[in-house]
């Protein structure tokens, strides 16, 4: 793709009669074949170029190709556009573009009352309605009462617009996503330049398709101006973003870049070993396409082989990384214990999804925290981190690499299905020309002992091929220094304590607990982890704006917990822990800190809304002593 850098955000076009909005939530929706995700991506880019802040989330069907027109084949894309920093994709759409009845059916329950619904009357035929599961036409039976509805014959208008471009009738119809995009861009006060540039590249070898899509885009864009319907138009101002160069990034992309940046900073090649599983597969795909940048990717025969190969790679002096989702994580349990026992660096990425068992693979959840912290046989402590937002995943992945190599330990990085696919603007970091935390393998023969620990309790990393240091490692308990098999009771106690102490000491290598928002003497604190960040941040900000004494603390380091967390939490009357599980972090805080942390749980496969959290905050403040 062409680098749009330098496309400095221009001042807006000449004023039109538009409502200024501080934020708008738009959802595009249609059949899987309708090109919704492409249109959404272009909408996001155009929005980003406008200087507004944004957050996006694609919602794919679980089925690969559901029959056209069915509800389970609906594909959607939501974008939150704002003139200030936003952290969520928005609770409920203000504007829905539904390209067929099924898309309407699926999205209806999510709409904000009063939302604007744009639909294509041409698709509201009997067969389509039936397919979508409507018994009556929803336009006729009051279903759409709470909303403002605009019926625009999008497909028909697209065909008209593309007539003469030489494309087939089928291809003409397929350009309707660009027609709709054009309209939404107009409503949103954006020009079509970035989309045209993209089309030009995308269809550089298919002039007829290029012409058709361009025509559709232009027609949609001008429709707002010319239509007899009074189509609402709004404008969202620029957000105050830190200066810098930006791109949008989703969680999986950020993880991939963060791992690569970490490898670079450690001065190590990565070996990423994985077995496909939704929603983690995308990370393997990303990295497979970035192999020239210092990562070897390996699709193993199963998750056990994947983690085993990653351990082998770390043993050999690369950084082994493995990634998976819930059920695959379960399968890695035994080998993860081996990595902890032999004390090799390893990064394990768990893109959590709704469980238990196969659960709902395409839906999000945070229910693998217990598994990450506690789920192994024996005392096998390791480090657990979580990424809070798509962009944060970059930093956390890099941090995972740093802690793994610096402390010779497996590090589990928890992401989730929502974070993996949600996207937001990301200020591209400067990559230091020199490795920031280069690994120095141990090569000194003098008094070498494979398990002799340094001041931080960390054993040396000696890679095969190092002259004179040949030694053996094993998952059997080993001697505190020599590493030879040892069944000595005192040695086992000492090793168990040393492994634990080493991990707990990681807390000295990470920032102490600190509030995201609020003051240590506020009444209520919301403690979050992972992808609930956005909703909590927005809800707390809103509550504080309402004058509520509410704070937000977000944990990146889940094990060990950061220093100072206990005293900090002790200062609040109430500690509320919103999480997409049945209370796992709350249990961890209670066990570790004896604070009466109260879980606020949601297990629907969907992220929290700001509204849900706001209500919970108000309820707690009312009750609080």
């Amino acid at each position, binding site marked *: *793709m*062409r*680098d*749009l*850098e330098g496309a*400095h*955000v221009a001042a807006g076009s000449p004023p039109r009669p538009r409502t200024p909005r501080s934020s708008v939530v738009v959802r595009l929706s249609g059949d899987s074949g309708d090109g919704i995700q492409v249109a959404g991506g272009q909408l996001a*880019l155009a929005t*980003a*170029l406008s200087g507004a802040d944004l957050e996006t989330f694609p919602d794919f069907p679980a089925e690969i190709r559901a029959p056209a027109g069915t509800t389970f084949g609906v594909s959607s894309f939501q974008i939150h556009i704002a003139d200030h920093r936003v952290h969520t994709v928005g609770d409920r759409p203000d504007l829905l573009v539904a390209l067929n009845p099924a898309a309407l059916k699926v999205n209806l329950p999510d709409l904000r009352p009063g939302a604007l619904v744009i639909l294509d009357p041409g698709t509201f035929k009997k067969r389509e309605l039936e397919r979508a599961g409507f018994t009556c036409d929803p336009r006729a039976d009051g279903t759409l009462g709470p909303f403002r509805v605009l019926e625009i014959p999008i497909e028909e208008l697209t065909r008209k617009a593309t007539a003469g471009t030489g494309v087939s009738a089928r291809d003409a119809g397929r350009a309707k996503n660009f027609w709709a995009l054009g309209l939404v861009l107009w409503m949103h006060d954006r020009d079509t330049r970035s989309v045209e540039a993209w089309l030009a590249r995308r269809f550089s070898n298919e002039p007829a398709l290029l012409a058709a899509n361009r025509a559709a885009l232009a027609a949609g864009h001008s429709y707002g101006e010319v239509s007899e319907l009074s189509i609402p138009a709004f404008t969202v101002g620029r957000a105050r*973003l830190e*200066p*810098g*160069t930006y*791109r949008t*990034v989703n969680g999986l992309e950020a993880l991939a*870049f963060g791992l*690569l*940046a970490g490898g670079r900073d450690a001065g190590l*090649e990565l*070996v990423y070993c994985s077995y496909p599983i939704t929603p983690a597969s995308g990370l393997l795909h990303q990295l497979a396409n970035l*192999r*020239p*940048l*210092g990562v*070897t990717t*390996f699709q*193993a*025969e*199963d998750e*056990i*082989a994947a983690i*085993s*190969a*990653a*351990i*082998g*790679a*770390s*043993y*050999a*002096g*690369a950084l*082994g990384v493995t990634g998976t989702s819930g059920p695959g994580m379960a399968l890695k349990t035994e*080998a993860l214990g081996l990595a902890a026992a*032999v004390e090799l660096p390893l990064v394990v990425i768990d893109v959590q999804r709704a469980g238990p068992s196969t659960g709902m693979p395409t839906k999000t959840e945070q229910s693998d925290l217990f598994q990450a912290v506690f789920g192994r046989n024996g005392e096998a402590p390791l480090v657990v981190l979580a990424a809070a937002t798509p962009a944060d995943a970059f930093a956390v992945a890099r941090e995972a690499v740093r802690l793994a190599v610096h402390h010779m330990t497996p590090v589990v990085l928890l992401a989730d299905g929502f974070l993996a696919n949600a996207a937001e603007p990301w*200020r591209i970091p400067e990559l230091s020309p020199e490795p920031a935390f280069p690994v120095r393998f141990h090569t000194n023969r003098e008094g070498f002992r494979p398990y002799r620990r340094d001041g931080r309790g960390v054993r040396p990393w000696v*890679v*095969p*091929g*190092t*002259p004179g240091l*040949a*030694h*053996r*490692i*094993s*998952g*059997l308990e080993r001697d505190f220094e020599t590493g030879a*098999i040892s069944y000595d009771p005192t040695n086992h106690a000492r090793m168990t304590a040393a492994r634990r102490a080493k991990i707990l000491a990681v807390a000295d290598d990470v920032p102490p607990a600190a509030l995201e928002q609020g003051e240590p003497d506020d009444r209520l604190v919301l403690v979050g982890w992972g992808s609930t960040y956005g909703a909590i941040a927005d809800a707390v900000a809103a509550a504080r704006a309402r004058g509520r004494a509410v704070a937000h603390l977000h944990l990146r380091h889940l094990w060990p917990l950061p220093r100072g967390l206990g005293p900090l939490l002790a200062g609040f009357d109430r500690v509320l822990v919103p999480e997409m599980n049945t209370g796992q972090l709350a249990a961890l805080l209670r066990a570790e800190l004896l604070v009466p942390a109260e879980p606020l749980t949601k297990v629907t496969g969907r992220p929290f809304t700001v509204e849900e959290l706001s209500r919970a905050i108000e309820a707690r403040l009312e009750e609080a002593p």
Partner: protein
Amino acid sequence: MSAIHAPLRLEPKDYASDQEVRWCPGCGDYAILKAVEKALSELGADPDRTVFVSGIGCAARFPHYLATYGFHGIHGRAPAIATGIKLARPDLDVWVVGGDGDMLAIGTNHLVHALRRDPDLVILILNNAIYGLTKGQASPTTPIGTRTPTTPSGVVERPLSACEIALAAGARFVARSVDVHQKHLPEILVRARRHEGAAMVEILQNCVIYADGAWAAITDKAHAAETQLLLRHGEPLLFAEGRKGLAPARYRAGLRIVEVGPEGWQAAGVLVHDERDRTLATLLAALAPPLPVALGVLYADPAPTTFERAVHAQIEAERTRAPALDLAAAIRRAPTWTVSD
């Protein structure tokens, strides 16, 4: 073996580690350890560039006893760990050692896939037809009818053949030897190591405690001539001191035993062993008592490249196609925009 280093001149004993060997007195593993030390010496292997990887079991204790780098991993996963090592460090000389339980029960999946991928590994299966370390339960190679603590009325499952599975998986080097064959076994090990790609060697091993004599029908010196078919590339498939041989079957596809008369083996139609003939190897692998059992290199036909070389060649080519691509550039492959103060 991809490591290109001048061979060292070390004695077999120089490959022994300082750890006390703790197999049962009389265990066949001692002989295999000796053979491996001999082979390493013969190969001039550099202990500092050699890695032994194993799972769990008596056999899997192997790495502890060698003065090379060693990784005693978890049950069944050694081929996967070794694949990771080779991906990260194609220059290392990596051996995998495991028992019949380790490799053909819990580890079958990894064995099969390592063989089909073909990284440059030697994979030794120390087949004693029993679970030794866990005290004598039936393994996937235990013969039908054998009574063990878990099969009080005898095993009912048909045993697996390591060589047949390996060939079916697409292995390009498949060999078989016997723990006590102290000339044959080191030779085979040297050949396996010199083969580029995954080389599987099944070693019939005697567990004196739980399956003593499990292979006696094959290995007993007294009838060895009748029960063993010693393979040599380019030489006829003869046994019973040359009195019998294997010829193509008539009217069906396969092999048959022929008596070699005074006119010699050619006249009897005895086949010449061709290590590159996968079909022949498959038929030889299936020979089991009462037919003579094939010992030696059943199949050796290196693929044009190894797994790790193919992977790294692809990466090299990708790098060449996009020479300017670095991480900063990759991040900027998506549209970017700049916010100024």
